[in-house]
């Protein structure tokens, strides 16, 4: 099923009598029903006002198309959505609807915010085939409940997105990447915290244990970046040897896409934690490879196939989701961290109300 318009989409959903797997570009490795509902036919940028920092696009619009339209005006999606293709071993064209449905945000999340923070409005089709809108295309909007945030990261389980409107930002004139040599996760997180506590607007903070260095990113006008690089180097002098890295853009793209785990066997987990807890959590993971992003607040872990990371972690503040594994493991462990009873009841209640017949990606989120 591949509707070409929102009205078609609504009609198709209204007539559905069995579960569907909702797919944009199909690059993020969702498994589920054999029956596929593709939104790729709903495509195109419907409105772009650079002077208002606003873009509206149909949900199936390829991310590459949006990025090209923005780049022509010197603007960008500031939340820097990850491209999952390398990590997941998928092909296809990632769509903006997929990005929003999965709330995909990259390294700039720590400074600029997540996808959900840039989502101004949505149109979607609920489980009964009704077209619903929420939010709009203006940056400040508190008119009624914020279903926009609820739809971001709902992985299609509450409705099928047909259109999204996004806040966009100017692309930086200049970028600098610094590497600080450190010897442990604990030292890395201390260094990252020191950098992120500074007033120098660090827009990326990662740690690659294999390379033994913390990576920091500074962006903005050229003079300003040069100034802040100097000041940050002074501030971090005691933390380890500091060097500047030439091709910052490529490097940060590889952090964003977790490229070091591509083509390497093993399951991939993504764990969101308080940065200060990262060292202890990382130790408990027994991972074969690690990558820390978000100043230590996001841990990517490569572990042997079929291992249950959540059991090893026990109770902690945050959540662990299974990003890459075979179908059997995903089936057994579930992609998402089980929620506490009170919260799970609320989530379950919402899914039941938005999709009463349980046809949208059933079981994916609980």
């Amino acid at each position: 099923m591949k509707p070409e318009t929102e009205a078609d989409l609504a009609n198709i959903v209204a007539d559905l009598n069995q579960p569907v797997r909702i797919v944009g570009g199909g690059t993020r490795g969702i498994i589920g029903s054999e029956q596929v509902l593709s939104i790729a036919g709903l495509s195109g940028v419907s409105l772009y006002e650079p002077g208002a920092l606003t873009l509206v696009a149909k949900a199936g619009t390829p991310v590459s198309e949006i990025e090209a339209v923005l780049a022509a005006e010197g603007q960008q999606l500031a939340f820097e959505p990850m491209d999952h293709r390398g990590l997941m071993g998928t092909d296809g064209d990632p769509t903006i609807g997929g990005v929003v449905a999965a709330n995909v945000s990259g390294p700039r999340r720590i400074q600029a915010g997540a996808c959900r923070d840039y989502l101004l409005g949505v149109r979607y089709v609920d489980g009964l085939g009704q077209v619903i809108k929420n939010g709009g295309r203006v940056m400040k909007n508190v008119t009624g409940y914020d279903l926009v945030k609820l739809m971001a990261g709902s992985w299609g389980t509450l409705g099928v997105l047909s259109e999204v409107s996004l806040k966009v930002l100017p692309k930086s004139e200049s970028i600098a990447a610094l590497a600080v040599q450190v010897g442990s996760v604990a030292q890395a997180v201390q260094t990252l915290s020191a950098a992120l506590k500074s007033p120098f607007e660090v827009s990326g903070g990662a740690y690659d244990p294999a390379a033994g260095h913390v990576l920091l990113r500074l962006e903005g006008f050229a003079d300003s970046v040069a100034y802040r690089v100097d000041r940050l180097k002074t501030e971090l002098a005691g933390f380890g040897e500091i060097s500047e890295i030439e091709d910052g853009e490529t490097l940060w793209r590889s952090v964003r896409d977790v490229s070091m785990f591509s083509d390497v066997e093993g399951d991939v987990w993504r764990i969101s934690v308080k940065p200060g807890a990262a060292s202890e959590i990382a130790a408990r993971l027994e991972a074969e490879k690690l990558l820390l992003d978000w100043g230590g607040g996001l841990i990517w872990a490569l572990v042997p196939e079929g291992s249950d990371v959540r059991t090893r972690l026990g109770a902690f503040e945050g959540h662990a989701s299974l990003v890459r594994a075979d179908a059997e493991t995903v089936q057994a462990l579930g992609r998402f961290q089980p929620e506490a009873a009170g919260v799970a009841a609320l989530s379950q209640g919402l899914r039941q109300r938005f999709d009463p017949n349980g046809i949208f990606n059933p079981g994916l989120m609980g």
Partner: protein
Amino acid sequence: MEMPRPNPDVLARKQNVLARLQQVLPADAVIHDPAETRAYECDALTAYRCPPMLAVLPSTTQEVSDVLRICHDEGVPVVPRGSGTSLAGGALPTADCVILGIARMNDVLETDYDNRFIRVQTGRTNLSVTGAVEEEDFFYAPDPSSQLACAIAGNIAMNSGGAHCLKYGVTTNNLLGVKMVMMDGCVVEIGGAHLDSGGLDLLGVICGSEGQLGVVTEATLRILRKPEGARPVLMGFDDNEVAGQCVSDIIKSGILPVAIEFMDTLCIKACENFAHAGYPDCTALLIVEVEGSEAEIDYQLSKIIEIAKRHNPVELRESQSAEESAKIWLGRKSAFGAMGQMNDYMCLDGTIPVSSLPEVLRRIGEMSEEYGLPVGNVFHAGDGNMHPLILFDANKPGDLEKCEAFGAEILKLCVDVGGCLTGEHGVGIEKRDLMSHQYTPQDLEAQMAVKDVFDPRWLLNPAKVFPLDVSEQRRSVPIAAE
């Protein structure tokens, strides 16, 4: 503006409810004397008043839970209240309700600079959150004009913004987690010091739900390191359209100021008389502020000034000192108070696409003539959030009604040009009946379904946000005997 009639069954059980509440709260935390409950009869939307049946001032999450459980048992509506600064009537009581005031819960629970968050009880005021982290040069970013008085609880309920949210976002972008008491007394924890939700983004829908989904007693908030410095520039124009074009050109140039504020003639004069900030006499005034080191500020302001010059400003003045900057901002932040010295006023809060600014201002001017009521405009120009202030005389019969009708026209216009009814104040009772202009019955049904899940009996702040006729069936569900 109508409110639902009080439920006589609830009023008849007042003594019983009071006795139960007194069992779980200290004596001074339960207010029942009509002379004292009057203190809670309104919020900052003072045109509407109604003393509550009772008011309670719990000091702990456990006490909040006890109060809600009892009210749930008894079928008593509860209206949560932060500092009572809502301009939309978000904390307006009904005669059969219990006001749950959170003001006594104002402690800082945890401050963590390494992980860049603070955990507070939500009765704490907005500005005192920044106050708690200032000595380490940190701040809490959302800065509503009422920040000296307004509580974090209300900020979360209304998803409050402020002048600097062009760069830093509004409350929802700075809220990491909550501890929340559900109407049945259960306590849930959502989010925390980590980023993003592991499941559905419940935090996202709780923020801005106007106290209708639960009572948030603790909040984890993102704190940021203060920039090295900040400096505003003033620019005056003879034409609103030109000022609007200048804003658009600044944004397109790749500079992201922390704030771009707009004022029209009436507001400029009122604020100047109030704050003596040296505002020029012109049609449209912009205050544009940038942040960073001295050199970065110089660089950004020079680019901004270069753009402004292309639009023939009648005044272009960079602040020369911290004192002057403070005065410039004092003028802007006192806009409501300054207008209040001229007459009674109603403050609107619609948002429009920035490109519609000239058209909307022109239409407001025309309507002002038609209604015979003056309007001043202050405006977060970078993000399209307007604050038209309609002046009227509350003592003149019919003036309030005329003003409300005028206000409704303006808000409908905001929606019609692609914007919305409210950018940061919330719907409350004020814009409740206009919701059907922005949303279809299905859109509203989807939102109300969320409340059905969180508060199935519709006891929390029930007469707000949704048009009364739309929510009536849900609100009038009879309470099953316990």
